[in-house]
């Protein structure tokens, strides 16, 4: 069955979500991945928005985390305080999985979504943290969407907006952050994870038609590729459910 790159990326992320996970998601592909997981492999995952909605029905796909579509048929409609306290909560916070995107990422999974260039005289200004820094600070596990480009996989970030492992295995502890950190990086060429000891990014898999070398060519820093395998293409079921249940009008895909 034919599939687009975006569909493949979405399904790769969805596969990382388990039943029981509480999924924090942003706008666009991140929200679609959460919806895909719920419709395909993790029907008992819970979709959760920083704006305060928990377990939204999502009868129609939202175009922002404050879209009125997320307010319909939830467990409780609260506000930002409720949402972020849930993530920082010592019990339920540990069950939250964050799905994030960014402009830049480094080898420890730290993210920049604020500026390119000097912070006080930036070449490019992005949206800023939003809830991303909060999610990356609090939750046990995050999944990051990135486009494979040298200017995005950076040796040194122009601005560290959202913490990954900071500067290594003890980075979070030294800074005072709770445990946790990035788990997967889903790109348009393959999927990365993090070495459990060094907390450095490693290649886990490449997409059909891509080679590990091509991936390395699109990064400023080098990562280990010896544990990587080719990633399974989306199944017909996955694709059908994604297209028909999650985004029938192609608003994101």
């Amino acid at each position, binding site marked *: 069955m034919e599939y687009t790159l975006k569909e493949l990326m979405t399904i790769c992320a969805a596969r990382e979500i388990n039943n029981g996970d509480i999924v924090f998601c942003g*706008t*666009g592909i991140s929200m679609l991945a959460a919806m895909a997981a719920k419709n395909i492999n993790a029907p008992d995952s819970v979709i959760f928005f920083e*704006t*305060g*909605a928990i377990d939204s029905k999502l*009868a*129609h796909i*939202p*175009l*922002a*985390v*404050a*879209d*009125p*579509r997320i*307010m*319909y048929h939830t467990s409780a*409609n*609260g*506000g*930002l*305080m409720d949402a*972020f306290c849930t993530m*920082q909560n*010592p019990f339920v916070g540990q069950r939250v999985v964050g799905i994030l995107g960014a402009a830049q990422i480094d080898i420890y999974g730290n993210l920049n979504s*604020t500026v390119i260039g000097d*912070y*006080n*005289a*930036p*070449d*490019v*200004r*992005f*949206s*800023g*943290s*939003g*809830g*991303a*820094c*909060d999610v990356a*600070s*609090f939750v046990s596990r995050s999944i990051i969407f990135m486009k494979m480009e040298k200017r995005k996989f950076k040796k040194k970030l122009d*601005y*560290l*907006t*959202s*913490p990954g492992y*900071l500067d290594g295995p003890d*980075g*979070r502890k*030294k*800074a*005072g*952050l*709770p445990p946790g950190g990035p788990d997967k990086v889903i790109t348009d060429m393959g999927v990365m994870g993090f070495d459990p000891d060094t907390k450095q990014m490693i290649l886990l898999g490449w997409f059909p038609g891509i080679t590990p070398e091509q991936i390395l060519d699109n990064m400023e820093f080098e990562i280990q590729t010896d544990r990587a395998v080719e990633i399974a293409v989306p199944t017909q079921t996955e694709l059908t459910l994604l297209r028909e249940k999650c985004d029938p*009008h192609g*608003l*994101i895909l």
Partner: protein
Amino acid sequence: MKTDENKVMRLKEAVEKYVTNGCHLSIGGFTLNRNPMAAVHEIIRQRKKNLHVYAHSNGQGVDELIGGGCVSHLEIAYGGTGKFMPTCIRFRKAVEAQTLMVEDYSNFQMTLRFMAGAMGVPFLPTRSSLGTDIINKWGFSENFRKENPRIPDEKLVVMDNPFDGWCDTEKVVLVPAINPDVTIIHVQTADVRGNCRMEGLTFADVEQAKASRVLIVTCEDLVDEEYLKTDPDRNQIPFIHATAVVKVPFGAYPTACFRYYDYDPVYMNAYVRAAHDDKEFEQFLNDMVYPHQTHADLLDHVGRHRLESIRADRSCGYAKDLDRK
């Protein structure tokens, strides 16, 4: 102050009276939902200048205020409205041109800052942002902070946990309280004294409202006090916090208002197209904002057909069949 006073005003008067040049302002809503857009347009129309704006993710409203030339300082977590505008365009241009001074926080931090202001404490603690540039890099210089008595001397303070490791926590970051001069929110229902009822998510409107010296409430429906007091479990802001109440149907337009109307994709897309170019944006303001005496005039200009297309379905609270491309 008499507590039973009727606080109803016209929007024009409320903005004239309370939103003064250089004042510290926060607006309610989130990205493309329940921004007090009628008030935002009135502020632009009155050509207010040098506003110091506090925002978490108050997307469309903040970008229009910046585009309208009203804002000199901005403390913000997220400048965007989601899919329509992943990064706010007039915001981005102003930052890159260095015509706008920005201080970055996270959404939780901005929310905690409003909460601290509402609670009457100088700060609240969190573990968010430890080890990041949100702590290390300051947009407002030390000097600027020291010279400006309206903002705290420190952006953030990192502190060891004085309860020795209690809650498995070694360090926290303290975020300073915000007490704006004026907060403007748009709610579904209010009464003449200023009791407020929001439907759907409340975002940080409650904290922003209670943190502020002056609270201007615009509302879809202005109701009898009796109506709101009959079901007080649904009311979030008691009247003691409100200063002015203005009835403005479609007051959040072009952003959404749950159970009343959806966001308007036509406006959003036109805005995005215009915002990329200074001249086109000026034209956009000349079409959509400046020529209208009131929000009702702007709605007349938009026309019945478009307003009808975003009317919320009873069943779900938004416009189910809206073309959102």
